[in-house]
């Protein structure tokens, strides 16, 4: 590793503009003639639309257009789709109800878009939106997924009888039942995974611009994957053909999954721009974000874990109900199936696993992937159950886990995944050492003297990242391939542009991707620029989510670099009159190995473009592209230890220590990786202690629709984390990278809850473990 190459703690190139307020976000974009949009949204969770009267709104000052779903349908704009087909266990395809970008005859959740108003100013658009008169016929609403499955529950979509989207299973149910029946011990758990609101710092936004003269659309949008947005808007929503639609995702202020999806607003802004003849910008306010960003998690599961007389796990059986909200969001169907149940083996040898999942419509915001997407649900369920089982059979949580660890790789789980590499014992030991696990009882006694209840909890997580081999996900129902593209352009004087289909919305690609190039060619980091987020610049890409940018996006870059390197060596060999096999690249020079003959990198590049003296038949220029399709998922894993002190008088939990020992494979920039772990743990602690999205069961109103009621983690809720890595390189991609973006959010919630339940001696506790809940659990008879 050089000062700026792979493994270096390089400061982020992009931070200068972010910390000086010079970032360029969608709301910073200004197009001549641009006007502003406001959406009319349903105040009801479930209602028929009787009539929409736009007359008064159209007469309001500054109003240019008021458009409804009927006109949208007339113009042939399509319904939103879910892009991953799941079949129920009876073989029938999932029951997907229609989701019109603007509701036509029915609204299904509070915030459902009904009409768009375009006006000269944002204020005028909002004033006029209030003047749109919508007559509703209110119906009963249901917000809880279990309740929605019951007989007589309000029905959301005619396509989905009993609100059931699918009833899916994986694994061998008979084998699991048999093992449970003959088990020496069975641990039974009821696991609730709380609903979360993503809360990216930058709210969603869209600017649609239709150029009549060119018959061409441009959409600036807050997207994690602008190319997927273009593909879907072209192929399914009939907004415009791909060659007439440019999608740009400029600086994007956080996504966490919520900006993967193509939402009604960007479609409607593009369409409204053509209808109204002006560029149309919409920026969500925070309330709209709470109401309409795709939420995360919301699972309820029944769990049985069977052990033999030696405390080895023999089976796991899970029955999960997943709340999908009012409509099926773009990747919603994959989250509680292939991103969830396939991870239920965790780090353990479990001979028999069976999981049944029922996906359910309710009158709530759509639910889709949120940092971790399915894997936090699997990890929380498994690690709470494992810790409980250890307590029940009287083994230490570490010993019980260690006894059941997978130790030989590759390891085929009973639920599809084939783990390629890992060393769980090393992470466990590293975490226990960093946490001074052995000294805990002394600390517990000391805390007791201060009137505090101290507890310790552990979580050994595994996740599947680098999503994913296209053929494999295709066979599981994915509507897209999950490869990535890259193009490396070496300029005439040797500076380099890397075009990637990955999208950075906080991850630091402009730094880490450049480090990869600097490392390969020994050129200064500053001579490498990363281009992303624009369909007119980067041909195609699948975007950033599921911790895939390193493992998949950078692997594509590495493949393109291979091609550049091969051609560069040919040119250098020609210039140096040497054999290309003898050329090595070191410190920005192409050298004949073992001699002092060398040509500087920039001179080789210049030669490629002057083309005065190239090998016979070689094309001028130096630009290579590559598509990389991964051969497997990657499997980051680790062990997290959380130590808490509970104030028994108030139930308040303080996290006094948090240790993360991760295995991320090879690491490009340790500082950025640590930042990802810190952020992930903050979100995981948020889920465990603070964040709980609540709807009023009767009215379907979102009760936690602002920061007055929805608790985001703050700095003073968190301790200083002790993070470390001990890495086994990933054998499945050229860089040995596993991915680190979601680990913190996946591994931390069970560690926190295991610690609190250890402290209070009551295992009956749900997330978020608010002071009130912990106090009640402490005072409950058990």
């Amino acid at each position, binding site marked *: 590793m050089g000062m700026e190459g792979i493994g270096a703690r390089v400061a982020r190139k992009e931070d200068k503009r972010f910390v000086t307020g010079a970032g360029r976000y969608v709301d910073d974009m200004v197009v001549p003639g641009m006007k502003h949009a406001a959406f009319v949204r349903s105040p009801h969770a479930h209602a028929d639309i009787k009539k929409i009267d736009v007359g008064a709104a159209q007469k309001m000052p500054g109003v240019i257009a008021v458009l409804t779903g009927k006109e949208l349908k007339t113009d042939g704009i399509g319904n939103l789709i879910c892009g991953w087909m799941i079949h129920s266990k009876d073989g029938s395809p999932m029951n997907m109800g229609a989701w019109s970008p603007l509701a036509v005859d029915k609204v299904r959740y509070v915030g459902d878009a009904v009409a768009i108003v375009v006006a000269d100013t944002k*204020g005028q658009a*909002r*004033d006029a939106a*209030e003047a749109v008169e919508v007559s509703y016929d209110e119906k009963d609403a249901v917000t809880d997924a279990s309740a929605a499955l019951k007989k007589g529950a309000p029905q959301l979509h005619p396509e989905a009888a009993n609100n059931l989207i699918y009833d899916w299973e994986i694994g061998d149910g008979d084998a699991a039942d048999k093992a449970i029946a003959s088990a020496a011990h069975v641990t039974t758990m009821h696991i609730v995974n709380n609903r979360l609101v993503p809360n990216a710092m930058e709210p969603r936004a869209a600017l649609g611009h239709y150029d009549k003269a060119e018959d061409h659309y441009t959409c600036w949008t807050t997207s994690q994957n602008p190319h997927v947005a273009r593909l879907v808007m072209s192929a399914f929503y009939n907004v415009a053909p791909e060659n007439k639609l440019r999608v740009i995702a400029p600086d994007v202020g956080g996504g966490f999954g919520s900006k993967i999806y193509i939402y009604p607003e960007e479609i409607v802004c593009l369409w409204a721009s053509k209808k109204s003849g002006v560029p149309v910008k919409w920026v969500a306010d925070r*309330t709209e974000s709470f109401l309409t960003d795709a939420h995360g998690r919301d699972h309820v599961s029944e769990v049985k874990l069977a052990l033999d007389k030696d405390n080895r796990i023999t089976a796991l059986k899970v029955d999960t109900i997943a709340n999908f909200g009012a409509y099926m969001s773009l990747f919603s169907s994959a989250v509680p199936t292939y991103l969830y149940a396939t991870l239920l083996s965790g780090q353990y040898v479990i001979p028999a696993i069976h999981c049944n999942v029922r996906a359910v419509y309710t009158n709530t915001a759509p639910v889709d992937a949120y940092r971790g997407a399915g894997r936090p649900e699997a990890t929380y369920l498994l690690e709470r159950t494992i810790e409980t089982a250890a307590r029940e059979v009287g083994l230490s949580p570490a010993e019980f886990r260690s006894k059941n660890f997978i130790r030989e790789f590759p390891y085929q789980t009973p639920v599809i995944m084939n783990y390629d590499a890992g060393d769980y014992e090393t992470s466990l030991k590293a975490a226990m050492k960093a946490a001074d696990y052995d000294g805990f009882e002394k600390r517990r006694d000391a805390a007791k003297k201060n009137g505090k209840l101290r507890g310790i909890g552990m979580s050994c997580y595994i996740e599947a990242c680098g999503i994913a081999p296209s053929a494999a996900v295709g066979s599981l129902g994915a509507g897209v391939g999950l490869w990535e593209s890259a193009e490396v352009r070496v300029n005439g004087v040797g500076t380099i542009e890397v075009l990637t289909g990955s999208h950075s919305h906080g991850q630091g690609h402009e730094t880490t991707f450049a480090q990869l190039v600097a490392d390969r060619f020994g050129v200064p980091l500053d001579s490498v620029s990363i281009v992303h987020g624009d369909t007119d610049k980067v041909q195609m890409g699948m975007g950033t989510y599921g911790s895939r940018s390193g493992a998949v996006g950078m692997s594509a870059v590495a493949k393109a670099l291979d091609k550049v390197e091969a051609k560069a060596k040919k040119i250098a060999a020609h210039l140096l009159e040497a054999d290309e096999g003898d050329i090595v690249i070191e410190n920005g020079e192409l050298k004949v190995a073992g001699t002092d003959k060398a040509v500087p990198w920039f001179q080789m590049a210049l030669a490629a473009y002057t083309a005065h003296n190239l090998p016979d038949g070689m094309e001028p220029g130096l630009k290579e592209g590559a598509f990389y399709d991964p051969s497997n998922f990657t499997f980051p894993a680790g062990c997290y230890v959380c130590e808490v002190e509970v104030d028994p*008088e*108030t*139930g*308040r939990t303080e996290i006094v220590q948090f240790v993360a020992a991760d295995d991320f494979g090879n690491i490009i920039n340790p500082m950025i990786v640590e930042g990802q772990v810190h952020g992930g743990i903050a979100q995981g602690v948020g889920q465990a202690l*603070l964040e709980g999205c*609540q709807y009023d069961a009767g009215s379907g109103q979102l*009760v*936690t629709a602002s*920061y*007055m*009621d*929805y*608790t*985001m983690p703050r700095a003073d809720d968190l301790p200083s984390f002790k993070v470390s890595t001990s890495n086994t390189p990933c054998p499945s991609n050229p860089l040995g990278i596993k991915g680190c973006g979601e680990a913190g959010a996946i591994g931390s919630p069970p560690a926190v809850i295991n610690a609190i339940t250890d402290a209070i001696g009551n295992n009956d506790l749900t997330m978020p473990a*608010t*002071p*009130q809940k912990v*106090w*009640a659990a402490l005072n409950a008879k058990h």
Partner: protein
Amino acid sequence: MYQTTYHRASSVDDAASLLKKADDGKFVSGGMTLIPAMKQRLAAPSDLIDLRHIRDLKGVKVSGRSVTIGAATTHAEVASNADLAKVCPAMCNLASHIGDPHVRHMGTIGGSVANNDPAADYPAALLALDATIVTNQREIAAADFFTGLFETALNEDEIVTAVSFTAPDKCGYAKFPNPASRYAMTGVFVVSSGSGVKAAVTGAGDDGVFRSPEIESALTKSFDAAALDGVSVPAGSLMSDIHASAEYRANLVVVMAKRAVAAANG
């Protein structure tokens, strides 16, 4: 936010006359409650009359044990006032824990008192201290001033100009913040003075700030945290919401009272 017209009042009389002229005017001080409500389109005054720049309303005066705090004094100014810290440090401490630094440098004691948010900190202090709320029309005892949730004895055109109180022998405040908003989910201000013990509770009552006879009677016997061991307060008239049930709040009243007494006893 709906359209509104902003006025910066130069004096209390100017403010009163601006209000009279306005169609549907509203006084604003720090605006820490009103402005967010307007941004959410939950309030739509035609005119905003800003009281913060009226010189007469600013500053803390301490004379012996007599304290007067001008209505436009910010929480940060109360928190950092050295004279006040000498005679009534609990008041400085309370102000130093309102909101965040931004709120403390914008929000004012007059605005907080006039708004009477049931989870605000000052009302508990003023009620326990037997403070007087001074307006441009009269003087009102705290016990008569805070009349319910966001309700006060103020007339439409009445402006709080100051609060005054006599610094007691001992006082202390402890609050348990709402995890999301960090307003007091339960806050207790205790006072021990020649005229006896008073304990006022904010954030918990279903009708706003109130005095707790159970806490006061226990502390009257002995102004000591241990005197509250085994004491309970009825949950019947306490708030229940998604963050805290009435029963949990009843527990917090006693716990916060203990901590407030401990703070008062230093």
